[in-house]
């Protein structure tokens, strides 16, 4: 009965603070899934008419296999079960029921002492989402992602420990990172938002939200998340660069602070591309203020520090053109040479911020999740009946 109480409120009413991205996310997911269904034909295949008991029994079987530590076999068993259930012409309701049935199965296993058994289950669905992507089953990939995230939230909420919150935060961040694409940030941003709700100190989630809001030109929100990140990691110069540019673009009050940060990021200790952007953007701000001489001085200083920088040279040529010094401008243009093909420009590197170190995070999550397997095995019991009490 304790297990029921642990999960029941979440099943009946799953309410949480909503990020600005969430409504857009669900709309996007709905449209995308409909498109995928139309394209792949998923949803028009034949599903087996499994009843609730059979589904729960099947899911318990999956969990039993998982509890032995054979994750590959558990994934295959999950694939068999889920593709058997989902696949009719109206999968939405069926998936919702399916989701509830799986949660009920878990609820029956849980009590306050056994919450850690959720960790390997969370990772099972995490892995399943990747598996479905590889097998071109987008509907089930999305379903698995949702399962993983919902369970991670339950685990963090009910365990209420720092370690559980950190684990759950990284699960969501890692899933968000796997979806991250600079031109389409809504899905990732939602997961980053949920991650920082359970683990406010997750640096990737904060940076991802900062970058996502910047792309939406919501600089105030971006500043909020990036500032939080920099309070924890003051030496993160990429975050500092994004924060400074958001400040410069946001309002007059913060503009000077942003410009000061940019000048600091021109230091030789910073990465080359960060320095280049810092010079470029200080000069652009000076040009916006019609301080042409100052802008020229900034760019010349930048070119001295970073000789061969194509974009700084172009800026200088444009400034010289504006000052009616075409011969000098042509001289500068003449210095621009093709760069190394494989080295991206500073402005591309800035634009395509990508989460890094996610493979290591995943390995760490898997190790952590493995600690929950004995608890899961104990709950499942060897030879225990598959159907649990409802």
């Amino acid at each position, binding site marked *: 009965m304790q297990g029921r109480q642990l999960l029941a409120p979440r099943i009946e009413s799953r309410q949480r603070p909503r990020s600005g991205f969430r409504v857009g996310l669900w709309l996007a997911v709905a449209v995308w899934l409909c498109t995928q269904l139309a394209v792949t034909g998923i949803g028009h295949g034949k599903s087996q008419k499994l009843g609730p008991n059979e589904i729960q029994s099947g899911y318990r079987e999956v969990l039993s296999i998982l509890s032995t530590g054979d994750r590959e076999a558990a994934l295959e068993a999950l694939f068999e079960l889920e593709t058997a259930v989902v696949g009719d012409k109206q999968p939405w309701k069926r998936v919702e029921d399916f989701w509830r049935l799986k949660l009920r199965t878990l609820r029956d296993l849980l009590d306050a002492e056994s919450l850690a058994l959720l960790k390997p289950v969370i990772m099972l669905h995490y892995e399943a989402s990747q598996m479905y992507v590889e097998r071109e089953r987008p509907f089930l990939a999305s379903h698995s992602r949702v399962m993983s995230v919902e369970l991670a939230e339950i685990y963090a909420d009910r365990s209420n420990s720092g370690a559980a919150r950190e684990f759950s935060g990284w699960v969501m961040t890692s899933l968000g990172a796997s979806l991250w694409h*600079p*031109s389409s940030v809504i899905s990732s941003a939602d997961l980053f938002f949920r991650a920082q709700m359970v683990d406010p100190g997750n640096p990737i989630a904060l940076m991802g939200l900062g*970058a996502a809001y*910047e*792309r*939406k*030109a919501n600089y105030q929100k971006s500043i909020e998340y990036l500032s939080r990140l920099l309070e924890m990691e003051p030496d993160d110069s990429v975050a500092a660069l*994004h924060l400074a540019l958001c400040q410069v673009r946001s309002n007059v009050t913060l503009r000077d602070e942003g410009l000061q940060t940019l000048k600091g990021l021109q230091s030789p200790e910073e990465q080359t591309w960060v320095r280049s952007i810092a010079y*470029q953007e200080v000069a*652009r701000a000076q040009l916006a203020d019609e301080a042409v001489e100052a802008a020229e001085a900034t760019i010349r200083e930048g070119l001295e520090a970073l000789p061969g920088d*194509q*974009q*700084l040279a*172009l*800026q200088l*040529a*444009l400034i010289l*053109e*504006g000052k*009616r010094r*075409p*011969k000098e*401008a*042509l001289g500068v*243009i003449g210095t*621009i*040479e*093709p*760069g190394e*093909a*494989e*080295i*991206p*420009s500073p*402005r*591309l590197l*800035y*634009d*395509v*911020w990508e989460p890094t170190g996610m493979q290591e995070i995943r390995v760490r999550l898997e190790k952590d999740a493995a600690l929950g397997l004995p608890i899961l095995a104990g709950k499942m019991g060897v030879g225990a009946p598959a159907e649990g009490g409802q």
Partner: protein
Amino acid sequence: MKSLSLVLSLIVAAVASQAGALEVWFERPRPSEFVFGEVEVLIRAAPEEEVETVQLIVDGRDVALFDRPPFRVAVNVGLENMEHEFQVVVRSVDGETKTAAVVTPILQIDEVVDLGLQQLYVTVSGLNGRVLNLEQQDFRIVDEGKRQEMVTFERGDIPLTATLLLDCSLSMKGERLAAALQGAHEFVEEMKAFDQAMVMLFSDRLLRTTEFSEDRELLSRALTDVEAAGGTSINDHLFLALSRLEAVQGRRVVVLFSDGSDVHSVLPMEGVLQKARSSQALIYWIQLRDPGEESEVPEYTSSWRNVEANRREFKDLRQAIQESGGRIEVVDNLAELDEAFAGILAELREQYVLGYYPSQANHDGTWRNVRVRVEKPNLDVRTREGYFDY
């Protein structure tokens, strides 16, 4: 007998010499004339009926080859204050050659001269395609509302200098890039004597460039072994292309091939628009779109600009192209690419070149609107829409 034949030979030689007394001289520029920017060159040769070809060489470079009068052309000698050598080689139908030369002086610092032959490249189309049978008197040039006196008039196949500016960003990967390279290759193959071109490949950075060259093999080589990668910086590279064109003489053209819009440039399109206005080069854009794509203006964001700012950039790019007298050729079928390149080349082969000295030049750097009208019905006339009065 010997002395008689000697006398006869001398008489025949003298008569022959008298009959073929080929002469050539420069009417413009005069030896005392300071020349900058666009310069009208007018060559006289007599007797005209004995002239087979007239070759003009400026500062050691072949600039024009005439096979019939008038021997008149506009050349751009650049803005540098330096001596310029104009040479002409005239060849008679009998194979006789004569040369003449003019060296123009350096302008001393306290001298004031009036420059500014304005050159207009005009495309005239009727219901059945381009119209090539118009005469000088059919055109009317209006500069800031005032009719101007035309001092040069040419039509047909005038040598050109082109920059083939190819977007090699990631979105061009595969068939798109292959088709673009093939189209550019066809363009190079169709170049005629005295035409020259530069190949410039870009993504978010300058990837590859050649010098201006008439060597088709060299240019074609630059169009091989190209891989698509990276982001897109149209503004930066259009500015670079226009700047490099300023160093060459004659009719200048940029042919931009890109499927997208600017994302990663450091230069605002507004600055490039100013450059386009002052350079007087024709800009053509072959814009590749997906079949069925209806929206003309792209809707996207990046870390650098939001949707609205991107719309402004796109609008400015279109304005630069329109003002230059070039055009946008939208291609939504890769099979039509060769045709698009060929169409631009054909258009360039079928232009009128009108020259005039503005009657009310103020040299105050203001923008002056220019219109060309044709005194015949149902004709579409396209040329650049103005110039900066420097």
